[in-house]
C-alpha cells in the first residue's frame, strides 16, 4: 500500500526528527572540532578521539562497562529464559501475576532501583564495587529478557513439547532440543537488549559502585563535573553509535520475524 504524503505531513515529520536528533548531531559534529572552545569551529580533527583512547581512566572504564555488559547479559539470559518458560507453563492466574511482577521493575524509576539495591547491598554487608554493579545489572536485565522470550513462547505450538516427549525424548532433552531452539530468536533479542541496557545505564551503576570502579557513564559524569572536555563529546558519540546500532539490530530482527510469520 503506497500513499502519497502531503507536503505538510512531510515537513511536520522532519521537524520532529530535527527536534529529536539535533542535540546528538551537534554532539557528534563537535566531537570532530579541532578547537577546544565550544563556541567556535576550528576545523575537522580526530584528536579528541586519539586523546580518548590514550586516556587510561577512560580505557579501564570501557573494559569495566563491556565486561559487565557481556557477563550481565549472559547471566540474565539464562535466568530470564528459565523464568519465562516457568511463567509460560504455569496456571493462568499465576501466569498473569508473575508476568506483571516481572514487568514492574522495568517501569520502576532507575533511582528507586538504584537506591534500593544500594540499601540491600549495605544491609548484606557486600563491599560496593565491580561485583555489586554486576549483580545490579543482572537484576534489571532479567525483565527485558523475559519480555523478549515470552512472545516466542506464545508462538510455539502448544503441543511442541509434548510432541518431543511423544517421540521418546526425556523432558530435559525435549527442553534443550526443541523448546530452546524454537524460542532462540527471542533469546538472542533478549541478550542484545540486555547488553544495550547495561551499557546505557548510569543511575543504577552510580548508586551501586564503589572502590573507584567506574563504568563509562560514571566516568563521563565525573569528568563533566570538572568541565566538559571535548573528548567527552567523542566518547558520547561512540556510545550513542554503539547503542543505536544494537537497537537497530533488535528492531530489524523483530520486524523480519513478523514478516516471516505473515507469509
Amino acid at each position, binding site marked *: 500500500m503506497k500513499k502519497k504524503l502531503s507536503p505538510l505531513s512531510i515537513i511536520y515529520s522532519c521537524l520532529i526528527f530535527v527536534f529529536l536528533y539535533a542535540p546528538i548531531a551537534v554532539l557528534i559534529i563537535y566531537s570532530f572540532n579541532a578547537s577546544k572552545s565550544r563556541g567556535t569551529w576550528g576545523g575537522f580533527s580526530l584528536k579528541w578521539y586519539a586523546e580518548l583512547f590514550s586516556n587510561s581512566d577512560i580505557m579501564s572504564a570501557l573494559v569495566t562497562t563491556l565486561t559487565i555488559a557481556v557477563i550481565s547479559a549472559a547471566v540474565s539470559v539464562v535466568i530470564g529464559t528459565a523464568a519465562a518458560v516457568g511463567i509460560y507453563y504455569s496456571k493462568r492466574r499465576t501466569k498473569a501475576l508473575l508476568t506483571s511482577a516481572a514487568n514492574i521493575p522495568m517501569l520502576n524509576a532507575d533511582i528507586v532501583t538504584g537506591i534500593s539495591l544500594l540499601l540491600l547491598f549495605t544491609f548484606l554487608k557486600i563491599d560496593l564495587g565491580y561485583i555489586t554493579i554486576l549483580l545490579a545489572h543482572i537484576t534489571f536485565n532479567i525483565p527485558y529478557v523475559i519480555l523478549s522470550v515470552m512472545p516466542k513462547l506464545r508462538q510455539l505450538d502448544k*503441543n*511442541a513439547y509434548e510432541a518431543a516427549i511423544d*517421540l521418546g525424548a526425556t523432558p530435559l532433552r*525435549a527442553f534443550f532440543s526443541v523448546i530452546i*531452539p*524454537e524460542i532462540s530468536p527471542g533469546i538472542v533479542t533478549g541478550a542484545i537488549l540486555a547488553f544495550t541496557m547495561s551499557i546505557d545505564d548510569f543511575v543504577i551503576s552510580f548508586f551501586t559502585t564503589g572502590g573507584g570502579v567506574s563504568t563509562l557513564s560514571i566516568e563521563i559524569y565525573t569528568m563533566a563535573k570538572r568541565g566538559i572536555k571535548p573528548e567527552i563529546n567523542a566518547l558520547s558519540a561512540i556510545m550513542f553509535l554503539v547503542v543505536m546500532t544494537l537497537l537497530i539490530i533488535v528492531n530489524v530482527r523483530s520486524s523480519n520475524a513478523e514478516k516471516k510469520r505473515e507469509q
Partner: protein
Amino acid sequence: MKDNLIRLENISMSYGEKQVLKSINLDVRDKEFITFLGPSGCGKTTTLRIIGGFEHQTSGNVYFDGQLINDVPPHKRQLNTVFQKYALFTHLNVYDNIAFGLRISKTPEHEIKERVQKMLSMVNLSGYEKRAVTSLSGGEQQRIAIARALVNHPRVLLLDEPLGALDLKLRKEMQTELKAIQQALGITFIFVTHDQEEALTMSDTVVVMKGGKIQQIGTPIGIYNEPVNAFVADFIGESNIIDGIMNEDYVCTFGGKTFDCTDCGFAKNEPVDVVIRPEDFRMVMPREEIICGIVENIVFKGVHYEMHVKSGEITYLVHSTIPEVVGTFVGLEVEPFDIHIMKKSQPEEN
C-alpha cells in the same frame, strides 16, 4: 481376550471440581481403527491424552498389552501421536523432523535415511527432505506429522482431530489415505473427531461419547442403524426424535397414531423416545392409519430433497429423492423395523 491391546478400566478424570470423565471402560483391539466421537467437551481428547500419558487419570487403570502402564511416562510408551495443530518443529527441516524420534533411539544414520525416505514416499512427499516445515501447506504439514509419528514403528497411533484444520476436499482425501495407511501398516489407530461422517467413513469401531461418558460402542453400521439412545441417534446422522408411548410389546403410539414396531421389554404405557431416520419415511397418498401432514418447505440437497412435514404439533424431517410441492397434503409411511424405540434419556446428573 487375546487380541486386546489397550484396556481402560474405570477411568475417571477431574479438574478440580469439574469431572470430565466418568468411569470409562474400553477395550481397544490390536490393528483396529477406533474413533472417539462426540461433541466438544465430551472427554474424547482427554481420554486420548490419558492413553498417550500426557494427562494422568484421577482414578482407574490403563493397560497396554496386558501391562499396567499408569505410571509409565509418555516418552516410554510404545505409541506415537499426531497432534491437532501438527506440532512440527519449525527449527528443523522436513527430514530432521521425521528423523527426530529415530535419532533419540540412536538408530544408525543410514537406517534413518532409509526409513525417512520410505515414510516420505508413503505420504507422497518424496523430495521434500530439505524444505522448511513453515513453507508447507496445511495438508503437507499434516502428512509430515503422520510420517514423523509412524517412522518410529509405534504399535498404536493416536490422532487428535488431525483433519480439523483442512478444507473439505483435502479432508476427504486424507480420510481415504489414512485408512489406507492404517491397513497397509497393520497398526492400531485411535482417532478423535467431532465429525460423525469422518467417524463412519474410516472406523472399524466407533465410540460415541457425551458428558464424559461412553454412550455407545459399535461398528459404524451398528451405531447408525441401532443407536442406543436419542443422543446417539441425533448425533450420528439426522433423526426425528418424537415423544411416544409404548402401549405393549411390539406396539407403540406417537403423533396420535398407533404403529407396530420391533421393540419389546418396556413397561406398559411407558413414555419413550421414538427415533425415525428422515430417509426411512416414504411419501404416499394420505390415509387414516398413517401420519399425514402438510409439506412446509423443501430444500434441494444434491442426492435428495429435504422436506419438513407438519402434522399437528409435530414437524417431521423427511428425505426423499422425489420432490413434493410446498402445501401438499401427504402421508408418511414407515416400516415397523425403521421405528426405533428408546428409553427416555435420563437428565444428566452433575
